[in-house]
């Protein structure tokens, strides 16, 4: 049998403990062990951004981090941030503006976008484009995504 390491992490607010093969990456762990299938695998070599998740508050490529490295960490996924309503505004803006088509990139895209929103910075369109440049979308022309993020950022800045 493959050797495993006992790993404990807090996923979307719930503590989980599993015996994890050291080679399993974090997104495979989330998808296969926990059934959290919202984080997607697009390339498994750290380029496409579909597996972007949040570990201890920082966005990471879930395919470039091993599950055992998340031992003791807090992990947030699209499912958790949807239920906590943290992503509500972005999700609303993405929906109204059709900033998604097939939706495969969308969870990762929202994680990256929320990272920028949380920074509290008022970014220009060019800066928004740069911030999501690690997230590949083949369907849209990116423009509606930029529009949606800009809209939410504008509202946050005006509000705050």
């Amino acid at each position, binding site marked *: *049998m*493959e050797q495993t390491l006992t790993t404990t992490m807090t996923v979307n607010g719930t503590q989980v403990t599993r015996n994890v093969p050291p*080679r*399993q990456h974090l997104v495979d762990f989330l*998808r296969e062990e926990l*059934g*959290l*299938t*919202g*984080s*997607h*695998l*697009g*390339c*498994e*070599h750290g*380029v*496409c951004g*579909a597996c972007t998740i949040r570990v201890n508050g920082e966005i990471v490529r879930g395919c470039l981090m091993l599950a055992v490295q998340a031992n003791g960490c807090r992990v947030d*996924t*699209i*499912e958790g941030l*949807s239920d906590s309503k943290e992503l509500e505004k972005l*999700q609303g803006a*993405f*929906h*109204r*503006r*059709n*900033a*998604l*088509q*097939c*939706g*495969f*990139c*969308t*969870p990762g895209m*929202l994680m990256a976008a929320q990272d920028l929103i949380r920074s509290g910075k008022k970014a220009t*369109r060019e800066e*928004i*484009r*740069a911030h*999501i*440049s*690690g*997230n*590949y*979308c*083949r*369907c*849209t*022309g*990116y*423009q*509606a*995504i*930029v529009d949606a993020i800009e809209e939410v950022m504008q509202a946050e800045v005006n509000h705050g």
Partner: protein
Amino acid sequence: MGKAELPLHAPGTQVDKGYIGQSVPRPNAQRLLQGRGTFTDDLRFPRLAHVAFFRSPYAHARIKRLDFSKALKQPGVIGVFDGRAVAEYCKPWVAVLAHLKGIKSPPQHAIAIERACWQGEACAAVVAESRSQAEDAVQLIEADWEELPVVVDMEEALQGKTVIHRDLGDNVCFKREHDTGGVDEIFAKAEVVVEDTFHFGRHTGVCLEGRAILADYNAAEHSLTVYHATQAPHMMQDIFSRHLGIPEANVRVIAKDIGGSYGIKVHVYPDEMAAAALSVMLRRPVKFLADRLESFLSDIHAREHRARVRLACTKSGEILAFELDDLTAIGPYSVYPRTSGIEGNQVVNLTGGPYKHQKYRGRTNVVFTNKNVTCQYRAVGHPIAVALTEGIVDLAAQKLGMDPAQFRKVNLIPDDAYPYTFPSGLKFEKLSHHKALDLLLKITEYDKLRAEQSRLRKQRIYRGIGLAAMIEVTNPSPAFYGVGGARISAQDGATLRLEPTGMVTVLCSVTEQGQGTEGIFAQIAASAVGVSMDKVKVITGDTGVTPYGGGTWASRGAGIGGEAVLLAGRALRSNMLDVASKILNLDKAELDIRDNAVINKLSLERKLELAELGRIGYFRPDTLPVDFQSELTVTRHYTPRQYGFTITNGIQASLVEVDPQTGFVKLLKHWCVEDSGTVINPMLVDEQIRGGVVQGIGAALYEECLYGPDGQLLNGNMADYLVPMSGEMPDIVCAHIETPTLQSQLGAKGVGEAGTAGAPAAVMNAINDALAPLGARVTRMPFTPERILQALKKV
């Protein structure tokens, strides 16, 4: 026919369009936004087995020996199978079509037997309890190979010194020549002749979700349920049935959420057929997911063309003739069942497309090589034909010293010339080239752009403006595939059912991969029946429940599926009014349905809520006359037949800045004016056009599957194969002309491929416009900085 039954494009029907023409958000996007969609890899099945493939490391080699003994001993391994074992369960195929005269291809097996013909061809399959166990065991398969001569260059393939498939005699899969006659005479005496040769890099779709299939065979029923990331569930149902020997009625194909397709997921892939066959062999569910590296090696590629094009015109700039000599390489097999002859064929059909010349000769040679297979990818043939046409048109304008917009104005087919037969034989119902050009010049502020360009040139800032007019194939009739013997449906069907609660359920054979198909069907159904959109539920992508149909390809979803939904919606409304008239004891002609209720047509008074109509129709039909039976489910079908294709048109413009020091191209802005007939949802149409433009920009600037002389793919991963990311992409302005097709009530033409069709040409022309004062010109896509510096003779 009441007012509301008139075609949507009839005069005076504006008020009855309902949701049609409105930018309504897609209801089905909500689940995707929360990561709660169901892509094939999200499904969980008991006893699920996973298959991984041992793929050929060579582009052409004989398989002398395969040794599975070590792989079989690995933990979790259920079985290891070679091509012969799988062939017992899956018949091979030959991808030819009768109307592509002379097309030939050898039989292809799910798993290669004896010989591998491209690097990445599956040569053995490992089935294991987990994907990682299957992949581990693949590494332990031992093979002895005898390398065979490799054909990678398409000119060499055409010469045929080395023949890949000896039984076929040569490397030519298909050739076509079309000649109006009189071409040589025109060129011999023409005042102006321009000629150039263009090269197009082989590239691929790079769907973010890799190909995915989960086949679940039930031995007791001899039935197969396939969860498949496919654009054409009914086509696949037929294929699985015929090749696996299962009655068609026992095969069900379900396409749930699909992570991008663009034509990639409409073909028969050997590894997917093997996965289905393994499910039958092992009598348990089997899943295959192509990982990214496998995707580059085995998803269809497209567009490897070399084409020489000539144009003859008068001194005053009137185009007289085009001549085309196209060569394209498709890998070692024509792809089943659509064949790989279609792209070359479309290049012949479409070259010269927007213009009014009368003489044309076009030729394509489609040849086999030892690279991955190519087949139909978004905008099939269009990006090639549009770039050839628009590239040579710009060269002619440059030679004459005419402005490119003015040159087009002189030559575009007039807007009042329709119906029109194009020299290639295509028939145009009604196009709007001049309206589109005028609108483009207006939204680009063309004159201002030109003035700014010349001002900046003095400061040695090299900006270019590129135009690309295009014609586009949409809403294909059975003339595309059916006449050639392919069991690919050109018709689609929609079933609409009033539920007892007053909800309307729509079942349609066209599938959704994110374009918004389900959203527009909800808009059409709600408008046709007279309910609000929240009362409509749309189901697609399941051969077990939807009417029979072709699915999603060739820009047909809205135009064909949408029409079926409209017809079914109108029929359902009529049937609902029959029931209402019995309940209310009023003349049907006095009634209509609006805002979820039966109303009096004149007074607009609400007479009966639809939930009440449903309640009586389903639970208290005893209260209706004994000779009356309510029919609250209707099905309608639609096939376009008057034209081979509903050809439409558009025009794009690109504004770029080229840095002559680095060869980098900065995309400043892009515009697209498109005539897609009736626009059902402008927001969805615009973002689909933008996505298409960005794919076309990828072809123009970044994307190419590079092969070494030994047929090895050199950049088959996302780090080395560049795709457009948000940082480099410009804002894209969309505008519309609406010339509805009169073949249907809805009047919608296709739009899905427009962006991809024209963007490469527009970007190419913009780059060449920027480079013109420097005496440089590029004609080999993608236009990498290196190629631009070569054109500038700096490297």
